[in-house]
């Protein structure tokens, strides 16, 4: 009786490989980091009502109303990736006078309890003294 040598890879191996590939792909896709498309965003963190993190496309900059202690502050972004508080119901208007700021800095309105921070794209700095 002659015994035929088994091929290095059998059909069962093949099924196993396909299964492994599928599993690998599923696992990889499940744990992938969120990636952006080529469109550029300004990422800001807002404290007020509601407090939230927002991604604003630079091609479509917009104004956002944030409710504070005294009333609604208006936060404005521009195409250059800058942000400012353009309107505030606070008495001293320090926040609006501050003008435009860019990542990694932000603007704070203490009387109205509204803060907007530009979230840097990279984590190059641990903090910023100002």
């Amino acid at each position: 009786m002659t015994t035929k040598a088994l091929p290095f890879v059998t059909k069962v191996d093949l099924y196993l490989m396909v299964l492994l590939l599928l599993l690998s792909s599923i696992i990889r896709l499940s744990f992938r980091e969120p990636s952006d498309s080529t469109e550029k965003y300004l990422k800001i963190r807002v404290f007020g009502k509601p407090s939230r993190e927002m991604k604003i496309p630079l091609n479509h900059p917009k104004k956002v109303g944030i409710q504070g202690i005294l009333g609604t502050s208006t936060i404005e972004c521009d195409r250059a990736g800058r942000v400012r508080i353009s309107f505030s119901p606070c008495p001293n208007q320090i926040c609006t006078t501050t003008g435009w700021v860019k990542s990694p800095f932000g603007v704070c309105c203490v009387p109205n309890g509204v803060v907007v921070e530009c979230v840097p794209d990279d984590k190059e700095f641990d903090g910023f003294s100002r």
Partner: protein
Amino acid sequence: MPKSSKYDVIFWAAFILLGCTFITRVSRPSDAHFAAHGSKIMMDTIVSITVYGAEETAKPALQKGFKAMADVDKMASFHLRDSELGRLNSQGFIIPSASFALLLQDTTNAFDISEGYFDPTFAVLHKAYGFYDGNGRTPSDDEMKNLLDEIGWNKKVRLTRENISIASGTLLDFGGIAGGFAVEEAAAAIKSVSSSAFFIDDGGDLWMEGRKPNGFPWKVAVKDPRGEGSLAVIETFDSIAVSTSGDYERFVMAEGKKICHIMNPKTGKPADYYRSVTVIAGNPLNADILSTTLFAMEPDKARQFADEKNIPAIFLPASGTTWMSKSGSKWFSNIVP
């Protein structure tokens, strides 16, 4: 040996892919790289704290840090009528808590070390310039003479072991020291729970302690008031405090002119020598006091003071280019002139 086929290629591709996935998963940040982070509006600014380390210690440490800062805010806030400072300003006399007594002692030391340039009795000037009601104005010369009579921690404040009293008409404001004091209290609270590295940002006054889990040095930037970028960069493995005093975040407008919130207590006038002064110190209290002190000082005096006391500092003058104290060059890099 059998000849390799396309199936072999698929096999090894699958093997490598699965291996890579496994490596990616196991090399994701471990518990030691966990960072608890939070931000809150307090101390008249935004405070952010990051505590590294195991989740079960980092999270409670973060909460303790915020609570410690809130406690100092309640104690030393100028605006809260029922704070210890509020009661002292309205009643002229109080028996301070242990913590407030410590702050008062630190203030006395700060007044002495700063040769009187750091003086919380500047509050009468803030009131006259309209900082507290938001209606900026410039006091007349006659008014200024009377105001200067109301200033002087050594003349207007009587501090004993049991109590503190202030002269009639005197007002105290602990801006310039309460922040640094609060950060020290927060740091102590964090360390009572966690032994890992942490970072406190009190409205731009920074304290970084311990070694970051990723092994990299702490890296912070100093804001350039003239634009949107950085004036300088600091990189260190040491535990340091960085404090900046500037004319661009707290001010009032009077007759179209910007009135800076830091006053020169010797002249009673707003200190308008600089756009910003940034100081590095070994603890948050000193950094806070020294940045305010140097900002209030005339440039020649500030340079001499910083060099004599070996204070790393960077100055952006109201007009002209950036300059540093002698020891500043060891700490600040990427300077924008």
